[in-house]
């Protein structure tokens, strides 16, 4: 009898012990590699800017941080994958403005950026510009705006596609300057830039990294930036703010987010680890080399930022009537 009681209590204790230990797994996090899901193809700008720090992230987190490309549908495939994965911190999404832009135009999105994700931290941003052909008759942004005002609907401006951040940039400019132009969507930034270089469209909105080489050679010209300060690589290019259109302010940003319901301790660990990786001097150098700006914002600040971006772009989408319903 006595032995039976001892065995029973031993069994119960060990079971209890294992149950408790499993529940407190946040203390051991991370114990296996972390998947960093990039929603775009390898070699693209999102992919490259994240690859620049994965090595340091692995260092600081103590486990390999593996970049996984899940391209397709402008970010939906990768986003859905992480949204539906276990909130244990081992699947992290590279959440970007592109996801927000998609959500405000598509009511049937398989996930919600605010509800289905717990943001970890903001990583980098890249300024967006209005660019034209190097030989274009528009030498300044005023030239462009004047022409558009005198000839409504004549200007043709390209973007990387319906609902892309560049499309939203154009709409933001339209709302701020009250001009009218033809929007020509292309299948990505590359084809649109090619069309501007060939003089087939009057201009487009594009991120710095995509066109800088061609701007420096004179094949393209940047007229204005949507950022709130001039960019060192193109210091002669004014901002919309300087030109009297402070509402035309946005930049393309990239961040890290975990599925909603991920325990607070795990989010904190990820935030701390990622911050250390981002602030590392080697990372800062790599980010600069790629023409991005380091914009680290911790979990506390970043979470409301995501919400405010969602509201801001929702307003733009509604007033411009952009929807894919």
């Amino acid at each position, binding site marked *: 009898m006595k032995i039976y009681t001892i065995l029973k209590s031993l069994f119960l204790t060990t079971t209890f012990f294992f149950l408790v230990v499993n529940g407190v797994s946040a203390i051991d996090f991370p114990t296996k590699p972390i998947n960093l899901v990039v929603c775009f193809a390898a070699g693209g700008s999102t992919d490259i800017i994240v690859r620049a720090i994965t090595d340091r992230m692995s260092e600081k987190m103590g486990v390999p941080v593996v970049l996984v490309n899940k391209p397709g549908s402008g970010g939906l495939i990768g986003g859905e994958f992480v949204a539906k994965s276990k909130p244990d911190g081992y699947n992290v999404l590279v959440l970007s403005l592109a996801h927000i832009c998609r959500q405000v135009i598509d009511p049937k999105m398989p996930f919600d950026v605010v509800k289905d994700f717990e943001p970890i931290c903001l990583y980098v941003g890249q300024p967006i510009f209005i660019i034209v052909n190097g030989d274009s008759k528009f030498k300044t942004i005023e030239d462009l705006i004047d022409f558009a005002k005198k000839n409504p609907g004549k200007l043709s401006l390209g973007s990387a596609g319906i609902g892309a951040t560049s499309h939203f940039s154009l709409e933001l400019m339209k709302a701020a300057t009250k001009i009218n132009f033809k929007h020509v969507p292309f299948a990505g930034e590359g084809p649109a830039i090619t069309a501007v270089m060939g003089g087939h469209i009057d201009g487009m909105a594009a991120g710095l*990294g995509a066109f800088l080489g061609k701007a420096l050679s004179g094949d393209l010209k940047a007229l204005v930036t949507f950022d709130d300060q001039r960019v060192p690589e193109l210091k002669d290019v004014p901002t919309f703010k300087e030109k009297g259109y402070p509402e035309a302010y946005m930049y393309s940003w990239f961040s890290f987010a975990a599925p909603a319901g991920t325990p607070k301790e795990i989010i904190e660990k990820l935030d701390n680890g990622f911050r250390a990786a981002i602030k590392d001097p080697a990372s800062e150098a790599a980010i600069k080399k*790629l023409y991005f700006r380091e914009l680290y914002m911790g979990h506390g600040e970043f979470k409301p930022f995501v919400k405010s971006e969602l509201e801001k772009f929702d307003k733009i989408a509604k007033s411009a009537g952009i929807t894919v319903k």
Partner: protein
Amino acid sequence: METLGSILNGFSIALHPVNLVFCFVGVFVGTLIGVLPGIGPLGAIALLLPSTFYISPTSALIMLAGIYYGAMYGGSTTSILVNIPGEAASVVTCIDGYQMAKQGRAGPALGIAAFGSFIAGTISVILLSFLAPPLARLALRFGPPEYFSLMVLGLTVLIYLANGPIVKALMMAALGLVLGIVGTDLITGRARFTFGIIELNDGIGIIPVVMGLFGVSEVLFNVEKIMKRQVTKTTISGLLPNLRDWKDSAGPIFRGTFLGFFLGILPGGGAVISSFASYAVEKKVSKHPEKFGTGAIEGVAGPESANNSATGGSFIPLLTLGIPTNGVMALMLGALVLHGLQPGPLLMREHPEVFWGTVTSMYVGNVMLLVLNLPLIGLWVQVLKIPYPILFPLILLFCLIGVFSVSNSVIEIWFMILFGICGYLMKKFEYEMAPLVLALILGPMFENALRQSLIIFDGNPLVFLTRPISAGFLIASCLLLLTTLLPWMKGKRKLLSEGD
């Protein structure tokens, strides 16, 4: 003459032992990737891209470029041996290449594919060395209206792909166009025919379609037949092309080279279209067009040369203007950016060693590939001797791996199976697959170019005729259509005159 100096300088970089090693690794991996059906150079380059971070940009480009054109060499192998295209550009090689293999002429087919690719690759690199900047500028003149007209020409060329009744080919092309509608519309952003499946938002992928239509269906079709493979009787009549083959192939190789090169320069799918276009051209100029589809070596020599020289051409916009012409070039662009180089017109001027080092390494790579591939022909031909009960499951397995490795999606595998069944039915009722594939590729491009042009030019359809390049393509399409009608008209005239 300054170019010659740069070329010599480039060779000194390309022949550096370190770069030779990278070149070899690249072409070797590329050939393997090309041989394995489904897994294309895009996947391999994406995988290897991060590891190039630690080496110099020139070496990185040399290796990645090697993978790309190596894959083009290897892609023909499975097309010829087992009727599975290694990637989309090798689809056309299946048509006559596989027939040749069935007639015991796999060796000459593989041989002419290798030699044709070598000649085309080398010539395209020579053209690239001397003509890069002006050609790039020419490519820039292609805007939406020019692409539209080029697509019209491409779709017209469909007629020549048909080896059977035209009506059936047109039906398949129409089906291809309809399938091309599936996906998110570029101009409005709305999803068309996706039925809520988000994997369809980017359209029906070309890889599952091609793997299914060619690979899976071939397996199903053959499994149905009871075939006795007599090991001794496998009439491998010679491993290398004979004199007759060379005579027949010389023209196609040269025509294919130039056609492929110029199509490859155009951003947006040059390499794939070039192989189809070459096939059509060879059929048109051939004195025996009825031989096509039954194992005409011209149908292998032309397209294989075209798709290899298209790879050379596709580097031009990237290296001279910083514009990627297709997915692989976009990755190369990424590799340059990763190394802090700004791709654009200044790259050639500020970093000539990158440009010339890469270009000259392509000469070297082509030689390496020829040396690698020729002896392997004997080995590949042995694959045909594997008994079907073992070969076919292996083929299916490779198709599955290929599709899954590219997309990570089970839905794409289902599509492949669906198209496999369709392909089997098509084979039974003798409908052709090449027109469907070409229409599937060209259809969306045609529609997007048309609508973009109409937006830019305020709905004025005359723009296609007022712009010279566009008008040129449209006139060529009309002429092409008219020449197919000529025999019919001659026949009618005869009838009329006899009736009097």
